[in-house]
């Protein structure tokens, strides 16, 4: 299963991606998470400690044409093996890097390595059984510019506001336009059934899951702990567990949340 998680800023992409990764890893899956956001966030949702700002720097070299390329012998699987960080439940994380006060300059090698690895993931036989989850930065840019070519399905995270709905609609359209991936909507920060109906009607598809508004997610962030570690039984975490079940059901049996589930 290979997913990309997209949506508006603050909608809960990293929470969904990070928690989903942990849940699926606990079920015994090999999980690789891809962080292509230059800003911090996913590491906390996953419960990972500090990691290198230029994680893939060692995977690349500069060719005679001055372009970055993966070093000899390094393909997607090798890059994951050698350069990813390992987090709780054995989740592996690759990120292109986090810029410091000097901007993107110092992480250009890592960024190029990441891009090349990402474009080879789906074709790498060694990684065929892996679950891959990409956490994209806010807005439509990376969806429009094919930053998640591995994705079989885009999970578009939408909260029940117009700003989030318009973004979700645009991202869904862009993801579908390429014709290589399916699209599903996850409603987050849900207070009642009307929230789910609003998002479904305005984005134009029945939501695959509804995650309740849950202050424990924010509390976990403030404590610097992953929500699944801080409050494994919290309603939002339980809802992501349900989402994981829905995503791993055999094709064709996927259903939306019922209204009672949405209201809780």
């Amino acid at each position, binding site marked *: 299963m290979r997913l990309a998680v997209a949506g*508006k800023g603050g909608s809960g992409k990293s929470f969904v991606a990070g928690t989903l990764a942990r849940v699926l890893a606990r079920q015994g899956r090999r999980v690789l998470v891809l962080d292509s956001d230059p800003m911090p966030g996913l590491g906390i949702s996953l419960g990972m400690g500090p990691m290198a700002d230029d994680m893939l720097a060692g995977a690349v070299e500069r060719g005679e044409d001055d372009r970055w390329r993966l070093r000899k012998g390094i393909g997607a699987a090798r890059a994951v093996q050698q350069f990813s960080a390992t987090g709780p439940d054995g989740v592996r994380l690759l990120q292109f890097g986090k810029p410091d006060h000097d901007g993107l300059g110092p992480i250009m090698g890592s960024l190029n390595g990441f891009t090349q690895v990402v474009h080879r993931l789906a074709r790498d036989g060694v990684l065929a059984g892996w679950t891959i989850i990409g956490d994209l930065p806010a807005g439509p840019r990376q969806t429009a510019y094919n930053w998640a070519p591995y994705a079989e399905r885009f999970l578009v995270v939408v909260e029940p506001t117009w700003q989030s709905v318009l973004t979700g609609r645009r991202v869904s359209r862009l993801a579908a*336009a390429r014709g290589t991936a399916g699209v599903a909507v996850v409603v987050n920060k849900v207070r009642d059934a009307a929230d789910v109906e609003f998002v479904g009607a305005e984005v134009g598809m029945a939501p695959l899951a509804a995650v309740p508004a849950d202050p424990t997610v924010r509390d976990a962030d403030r404590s610097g702990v992953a929500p699944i570690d801080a409050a494994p039984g919290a309603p939002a975490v339980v809802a992501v567990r349900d989402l994981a079940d829905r995503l791993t059901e055999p094709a064709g049996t996927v259903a939306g949340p019922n209204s009672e589930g949405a209201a809780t």
Partner: protein
Amino acid sequence: MKIAVAGKGGSGKTTISGTLARLWARDGRDVLALDADTNPMLGITLGLGPEETDLVLGVRQGLDTGETEHAPSVDEMIETFGRDAPDDVRLVVASRIDQIDPG
């Protein structure tokens, strides 16, 4: 006075920007509200409503589709591509990502 508003996604940049623009316009200032996000949502908090917000043309897309023949001045871009929001705030959207990059 020229102000840029920045921060993490979902932190409230657009809410603060739109509300400041409306408040200053009500004080009698001429306010230009520039939406520099490629996912432009400032129209929502200015009070344009979701349908209108989704339709405001990006300057870049407007120029690309050849709505003007010459490189226009800043004033002309504001005039041609901008849109009036409540309290006479002038909204200009810089660029909107609406299509996949075929490359």
